């Protein structure tokens, strides 16, 4: 279980996150929705250790990890698919996937997980010798997800997986997210595509200008008039 408790984050004088708290229970899909600039990505980056909060704490399975490095958090089972995929463009698909398993030493386990990733994303197997930068947007998203799964995470952060993808592909990606969750990985999903996110989420938080303003189950929020008006287009 991941708990974020009252974190505040500043960029210079800008107060980007104001007392943000949220909980991601094991085995669930939790989504964080909100407009551009609401602080969703900053929340994820703080949870994965790329950004240090000015106050507040982050707990993983009850253990305070606020002061730990991103490396330590990967080891503890946190993995993040960053916004905009961020694949290593001049390296091959296979090299990207192997980098996902950078901290692991269990050769057999890595080989097994690689096979699982290829099974889930067959296109990656076809392109394993190709430079990651030559893949299409959807393929890069799959690669970024596959790469994140290679660390065998307990909890997977996904930052805007639907960004820039055609509707059909978005559906495919969300189907895969559900499958990943059903096979035992907890998911924290940040999305601007609120309707898609609410469909698959067990629990959802809504962010506005650096604060959590609403929370509830996915079904509850998709019925809420406020949410409908602000995020679901009517």
């Amino acid at each position, binding site marked *: 279980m991941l708990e974020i408790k009252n974190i505040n984050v500043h960029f210079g004088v800008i107060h980007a996150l104001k007392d943000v708290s949220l909980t991601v229970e094991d085995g669930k899909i939790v989504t964080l929705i909100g407009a551009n600039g609401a602080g969703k990505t900053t929340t994820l980056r703080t949870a*994965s*250790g*790329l950004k240090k909060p000015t106050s507040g704490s982050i707990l993983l399975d009850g253990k305070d990890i606020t002061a730990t*490095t*991103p*490396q330590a958090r*990967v*080891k503890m089972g946190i*993995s*993040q698919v*960053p916004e905009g995929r*961020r*694949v*290593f*463009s*001049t*390296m091959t698909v296979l*090299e990207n996937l*192997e*980098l*996902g398993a*950078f*901290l692991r030493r269990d050769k057999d386990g890595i080989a097994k997980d690689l096979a699982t990733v290829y099974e889930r994303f067959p296109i990656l197997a076809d392109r394993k010798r190709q430079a990651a930068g030559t893949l299409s947007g959807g393929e890069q998203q799959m690669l970024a997800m596959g*790469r*994140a799964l290679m*660390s065998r995470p307990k909890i997977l952060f996904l930052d805007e997986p639907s960004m820039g993808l055609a509707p059909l592909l978005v559906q495919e990606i969300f189907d895969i997210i559900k499958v990943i969750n059903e096979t035992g990985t907890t998911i924290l999903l940040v999305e601007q595509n609120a309707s898609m996110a609410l469909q698959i989420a067990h629990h959802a938080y809504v962010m506005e200008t650096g604060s959590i303003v609403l929370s509830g189950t996915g079904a509850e929020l998709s019925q809420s008039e406020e949410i409908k008006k602000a995020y679901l287009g009517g």
Partner: protein
Amino acid sequence: MEQFLQQLINGLSLGSIYALIALGYTMVYGIIKLINFAHCDVYMIGAYVGYACMTYFHLGLLPSMLIAMAACTLLGMAIEKIAYKPLRNATRIAVLITALGVSMFLEYGTMFFVKAEVRAYPSMTGWMAQSFQVGGVNISMLQVIIMAVTVILMILLQFIVKRTRVGRAMRAVSLDKDAAELMGINVNSTISFTFALGSALAGAAGVLVGVYYNSINPLMGMLPGIKAFVAAVFGGIGLIPGAMVGGYAIGMIETMVDGYGNSLYKDAVVFAILILILIVKPAGLLGKNTREKV
């Protein structure tokens, strides 16, 4: 023809040295986007360490070179830790100015300890002092050693970068620091390792230059340093094969100008090439032209 072949051999020897130094510039640039001006002084220190080993401890060329490489590795890592690491989030110009400062500190700091005078490297004895003729071309054993050592070090470097875990981390960090961090890569130690690797090569180059030209002084790094930098830009800064190609190209061009034209112009030609490259193909010979996103 004979003269041409002779110049070719001389050019390859000089080019080897430039390539070794250029690799350090290019690797550091690739990973933290810094032109490490202090790099040429690491090379100078390498030459002095080699000199000390050979003159005072009467060690052979190979052990002296290995010791110089080890010393430069430590020096490079120390420079990175003390001067550049605190500036990791500073503007690029601040780090660049710091690099110039470190460079001067090393040059004049060394001068304080060893005096500004030129020192003569002990001359080689035995087979290393020999030379042989191939079809009228005179090749010295030293030239062979320089070329062989360079090739071996380049193969080693390629192996490290392409095949090892830390090499893979280096490539990942140079492509995308945040994404690398999310893979669990320790960015700071990877940067430190990059400095170590580049500095080791510079140390080797320092000793090779010492035995080849026989004289060293505390400011000896300035001109070869700038030329190696030109070589790195020529091949495409940030690209390891670019530095190799650029190093040999600059060495060759310089020797040819020296041999066929006027030796007074050899430096001018090298810098004219830099200007030309920056105008025609700023990304370098092997680089792709990419627009910088603002």
